[in-house]
């Protein structure tokens, strides 16, 4: 195992180090760690700064601690697993790969995530998410488990506003606050839960060594775009 202290060794050394698996310790707000990484495994200890794993393109980044804003921004592939909470604008414009956050996520998580053919972005938030979760969602899956927030609201205001594809799954029976009339809320049936949610949540749970059954307790609701109210209807061509 190759271990670096980011404060002593500096970011350039780490960037140039060609190894399949490295650990960096002592993070205290250093930005752009793992930016554009294509392969390998990066363990991050401490509190990395903004834009962690931005443009991540295939590698795996494990964070033992909290991450700040814009983590996994425009991520393309790979895995980011955060054993802690995330700041604002998590996984913005994400295009593929998986982002797992065991704790909570701030505002604007999963805005404009996408899916295309075999590239499907997946975001799982173990705790609760702030307002504007999944706005403009264009594809992919967001799951909010609300672990430790049973009987409380697990999303904020404007959940899924403007979304036009993809699905937001919430482990709760409470409808999100001020849900847009262009969205549909439905209860998730057993089949969908087993087929779609279980494999994702099982993988999520395994990364943090928690029992998957705990993440599947109780019912899920799904939020999706109402296809009958598309953007196209807004316009009249001159």
């Amino acid at each position, binding site marked *: 195992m190759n271990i670096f202290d980011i404060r002593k060794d500096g970011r350039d050394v780490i960037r140039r180090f060609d190894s399949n698996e490295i650990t960096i310790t002592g993070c205290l707000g250093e*930005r*752009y760690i793992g*930016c*554009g990484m*294509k392969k390998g495994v990066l363990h991050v200890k401490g509190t990395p700064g*903004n*834009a962690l794993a*931005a*443009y991540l*393109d295939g590698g795996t980044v494990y964070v033992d601690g909290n991450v700040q*804003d*814009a983590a996994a*921004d*425009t991520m*393309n592939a790979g895995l980011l697993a955060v054993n802690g909470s995330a700041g604002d*604008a998590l996984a*913005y*414009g994400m*295009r593929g790969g998986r982002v797992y956050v065991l704790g909570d996520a701030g505002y*604007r998580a999963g*805005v*404009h995530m*996408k*899916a*295309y*053919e075999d*590239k499907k972005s997946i975001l799982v938030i173990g705790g609760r998410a702030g307002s*504007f979760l999944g*706005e*403009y969602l*264009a*594809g992919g899956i967001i799951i909010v488990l609300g672990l430790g927030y049973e009987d409380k609201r697990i999303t904020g205001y404007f959940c899924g506003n*403007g979304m*036009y*594809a993809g699905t937001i799954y919430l482990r709760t029976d409470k409808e999100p606050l001020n849900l847009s009339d262009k969205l549909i809320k439905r209860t998730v049936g057993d089949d969908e839960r087993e087929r779609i949610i279980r494999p994702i949540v099982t993988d999520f749970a395994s990364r943090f060594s928690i029992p998957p059954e705990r993440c599947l307790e109780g019912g899920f609701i799904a939020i999706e775009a109402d296809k009958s109210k*598309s*953007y*196209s*209807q*807004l*316009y*009249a*061509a*001159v």
Partner: protein
Amino acid sequence: MRRYRIRKDESCVSCLRCVRECSFGAITAGDDKSLVFHHEKCTDCQRCVSFCPAGAIYITEDENRFRRNAVFSEDDIKEIRLQAETGGVLLSSMGASGRNVPIYFDKMLLNASQVTNPSIDPLREPMETAVFLGQRPEGIERNQMGDIEDNLPPHLELKTPIMFSAMSYGAISLNVHKALASAAEKLGIYWNTGEGGLHESLYPYKEHTIVQVASGRFGVHETYLNTAAAIEIKIGQGAKPGIGGHLTGKKIIGDVSKTRMVPEGLDAISPAPHHDIYSIEDLAQLVMSIKEATHYEKPVIVKVAAVHNIAPIASGIARSGADIISIDGYRGGTGAAPKRIRDNVGIPIELAIASVDQRLREERIRDRVSVIVSGGIRNSSDAVKAIALGADAVSIGTAALCALGCHICASCHTGRCAWGLATQIPELTKRLDPEKGAELLVNLVNAWTREIKEIMGGMGINSIEALRGNRMALRGVDLNEKELEILGIRYAGE
């Protein structure tokens, strides 16, 4: 809405060429192969007129006019009726059509040498039109031996100060992208992908490609960022400042879907803001994360629309670490924008250039960034005037499309462009041969470059860099004192 009237005269040979050329269904063939005109569908794109072998077709404004009114024009009334019927936001395309917004380029005149300093003949003497875009080093550094160190940050080199504006694959066809890319390579300039991603067949043009990162992040991945000479973060565009984009699912077919990585038939929405940029600090973060992902080897451009506070905005961008600011003015074109936004939001590029250049100079950060401007550059003298006001280079979109056949019928948003430019319908896109298109674009830019040299020579200037911000080269006519003050120029005769 019926706006034009189609007619033919007796020289028509009934070859039905016009029927085949019309993509809007305005001319069809009847059972007896006679022409049937559907005037209400005509967009006045001039395709049928251009291809009629007999010169027999005429498109004119419909002479049936609404009763004249001093306040409400016919268009006003028609638009009210359309909105009353549909309840829709009016959708339009191409540049603004504000009736009373002046084109300041037409109110500025250029200088020339007479007697006191000699003019230069560009056919006889060397004339430098190359420009370098990017940050300039703050000072000269020498190593211990006393030799000059190369401390030049990444930059773009243009053989002539003209480049092609961002137009996305989806808004325009792949053949147009091919023509632009190939022409940019031949000319030693750059073309810009717009926000719809970069088709793989165009990867070989990477040295002359600027890739765009917009709020939708369509087609943006690490390979895309590294298949470019520079990366542009698009915050706004002149035709629709402050609002996002919406590419209709109808245009997301085949390779457009693949390149944007949006499933076929699904709308592609670009949110109004980048939701990871709510401040200059956030912008700085995106600039730096892009530099990080591209190993600090490429300049980063930030494109904004010219709006009221453009000078402080530009100052903020200059301090964000961006290498180049691209400013798109009020008259900038678009493939689709709400009409009210297009016609009423933003300011003319001429005023924006002058105020930005002035502000950056006052703050002593003009050399930290280069400035590219666009939005209604129609010819080489507009380009020269823009540079004299303070721009480093200009970008052309509408003019480039005109070189490829566009007649500015402003029907891009219908997706049925008869000239095969703003469409994805295979029968229409094949109307543009990319090689021929590239040749047309090369000719246009070469011609403008020659004219720029002539104009510079006439002023006794032999390097385009000496023209940048050289406002003594300009004089105003028909302008008030405030306008002269903002433009930083004197009145003709002063």
